[in-house]
């Protein structure tokens, strides 16, 4: 059966964990903000933009959706927001089936390259989209003032959007996506064109969302930024998710100790290190140990010290998100675990 009926899933899950209806409800209805499987989208005959995407975003987390241009990130988000119709989709968003209007009033969305009506000012834009979200007038007015302050547009709230700069439009877009105080926000490249100060502000807005237990899905190319805030990421390439999970989990295999020494003529670093740790790699003045146990590094340090080598720095390292991304894109290799089963002892320093 290609398309799993939402009610059917509820029923199956309810039967599965007999005796604990509350947990079941929260597992299916409230547990995950987004839980979709096998999302497929074809544009016409030729373009197969999504080829069966599985994605799960929990409440209270910031989820990063990465991928090269044309990977299908925006397409996926649009499917969730009912802007385009998926060829095939099953699963839930905030407990409603994908395509139902029911969830939409509780979701915020910032499309990429969005354009607001040019004849409105910032405040009117928020009011208009708030009204489309069925918010009462009073609340719209209150929320608009609050959000314009949060994104730093209070000074320009009466200026026509036509005269806004790119970054100001983007900030207004963020405010718009938060207008209905959503339980889930989908942001398609939110920091596009925003200055560093603005980016930091946006990051703090996202963190504040998470603090309130809301879910955020960010779709961005600025990996260093995502790395700072996201709890979990998924990397999409060519319409499929090749990697999904916590950044720590995904990069755990790449953790290593690095010892940097002072270069000296006639020093055979490889020979010195090789005796203590045969698996170590030597690159110029760097020694990399493929082990994360500090104890395992001590013999190497001893050996180096015994040989009279001057140590400059010793530190633990792991691949950055960028490295992970590059590897995922290059070989489409599945790095680490997918499915988001993060081990709890891995807390980030």
């Amino acid at each position: 059966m290609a398309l799993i009926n939402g009610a059917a899933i509820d029923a199956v899950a309810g039967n599965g964990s007999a005796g604990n209806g509350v947990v079941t409800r929260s597992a299916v209805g409230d547990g995950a903000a987004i839980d979709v499987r096998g999302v497929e989208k074809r544009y016409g005959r030729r373009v197969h933009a999504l080829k069966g995407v599985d994605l799960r975003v929990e409440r209270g987390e910031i989820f990063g959706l990465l991928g090269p241009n044309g990977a299908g990130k925006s397409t996926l988000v649009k499917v969730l927001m009912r802007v385009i119709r998926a060829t095939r989709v099953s699963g839930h968003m905030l407990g409603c089936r994908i395509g139902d209007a029911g969830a939409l009033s509780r979701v915020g969305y910032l499309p990429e390259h969005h354009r607001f009506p040019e004849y409105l000012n910032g405040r009117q834009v928020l009011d208009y989209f708030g009204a489309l979200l069925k918010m009462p007038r009073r609340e719209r007015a209150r929320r608009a003032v609050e959000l314009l302050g949060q994104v730093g547009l209070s000074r320009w709230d009466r200026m026509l959007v036509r005269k806004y700069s790119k970054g100001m439009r983007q900030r207004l877009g963020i405010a718009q996506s938060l207008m209905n105080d959503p339980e889930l926000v989908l942001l398609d490249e939110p920091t596009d064109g925003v200055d560093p100060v603005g980016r930091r502000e946006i990051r703090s807005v996202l963190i504040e969302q998470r603090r309130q237990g809301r879910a955020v899905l960010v779709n961005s190319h600025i990996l260093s930024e995502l790395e700072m805030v996201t709890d979990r990421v998924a990397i999409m390439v060519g319409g499929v998710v090749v990697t999904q999970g916590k950044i720590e989990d995904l990069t755990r295999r790449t953790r290593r100790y690095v010892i940097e020494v002072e270069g000296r003529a006639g020093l055979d670093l490889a020979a010195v290190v090789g005796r203590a740790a045969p698996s170590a790699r030597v690159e110029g003045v760097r020694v990399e140990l493929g082990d994360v146990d500090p104890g395992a590094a001590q013999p190497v340090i001893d050996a180096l010290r015994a040989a009279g080598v001057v140590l400059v720095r010793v530190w633990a390292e792991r691949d950055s998100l960028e490295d992970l991304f590059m590897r995922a894109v290059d070989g489409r290799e599945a790095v680490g675990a997918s499915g988001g089963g993060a081990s709890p002892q891995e807390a980030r320093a």
Partner: protein
Amino acid sequence: MITQTWAIVWDTFRELRSRRLWWLTLGLSLLVVGVFGAIGLGERGLTFLWWELETPFLNKQTVGVRDFYTNIFVQFGVAWWLGWLGLILALMSTASIVPDMVSAGSIELVLSKPIGRWRLLLTKYAGALGFVGVQVLVFAAASILVIGVRGGVWLPGLLIAVPLVVGVFSMLYCVCVLTGLLTRSTLAALVITALFWGFVSLLSTAYTGTEFFREVNALNLESQGRRVERLRAQRAALEESQAPGADGDGPAGQAQLPEETGERWDLGPGEAERLAERLREAEAELARVEENRRLIGRVEWWLRASITALPKTGRAIEMMTGWLESEAQVAQREQRQSEGQDLVGAFDPNRGRPQSPEEEAEERRRERVIEARVVSARREQSAWWVLGTSGAFNAAVLLVACWRFGRRDF
């Protein structure tokens, strides 16, 4: 529900209001109203502001003030301004509403809100109609006011122009919405709508043309038929007179011929052949006219079918002027008829030939007959037919637009 609908309608209005064209249209409207105010009817003739033009045929003695103003409103305000220029301006200012809405970057914002696509599109459509209605209302109300103040007659009946003009506008606007949706381009939507309008007008003109052709041809058919009969009778008479045993002298033979034929002839040598020749000609002509009748019938059928399927903007405007006029009982019939006669004249193959007074009288009679027949044929297509079929077209186009909009990926 109401919040959303109101938001969309209000947004549509703000969009229109932000256009220079919207204000230009309003300004021109008021200018036209101003002209109404400037023109008046004095004791001795037309007045324009404070000048009075002496027009013996047009003054308070010859025409009622009420008729005069209604007439001006209909001839200039409705037929010329609302039904033509104003309609074009309205189309130009509203054409971009749908392409703007579905433009990349805007449509995502709206579609991701909890509102149905059909509702979205129909609300936008209705909003555009509503604000065109506001424009017309302003125009009509201002006209009534100005005419009332200046001419001392109050003509609230002119307000009927509001729903009618909006109706005519909606016939074109639905095409504009559909094309705007499909092409996502305001310019393409406008051009296609204009072409469509032109095409519909052309069909309507062609249909009127064939109506006249049909009647001219029908009269031809009758007279040719009579001619053939007459010639046959003559031939029969001739054969009889020449038959053995009959009186041989000519005048007696001529006396037996039907009197009313009007055709003179002499029974001379070879007369029988000439008669036969003329009969053949007449029969060939009859066959040709008959063939024409069938051809015209086919063309007319196709034209009528397509006109039935398409909106009838021209007819609706005509109807509107008719209603407004009949309300004030303006004697417009003569003028219409003279126009009709010109049209008949244009199709007359004998036009321009020197004619005897009798022939001319006969010509007049023919024209009157044709005119009467065409007018009666038109009456058969009642107001409900015009509005109903146009409305059906509207609904069908909107349905296609909604269906497309509902399924389309953005």
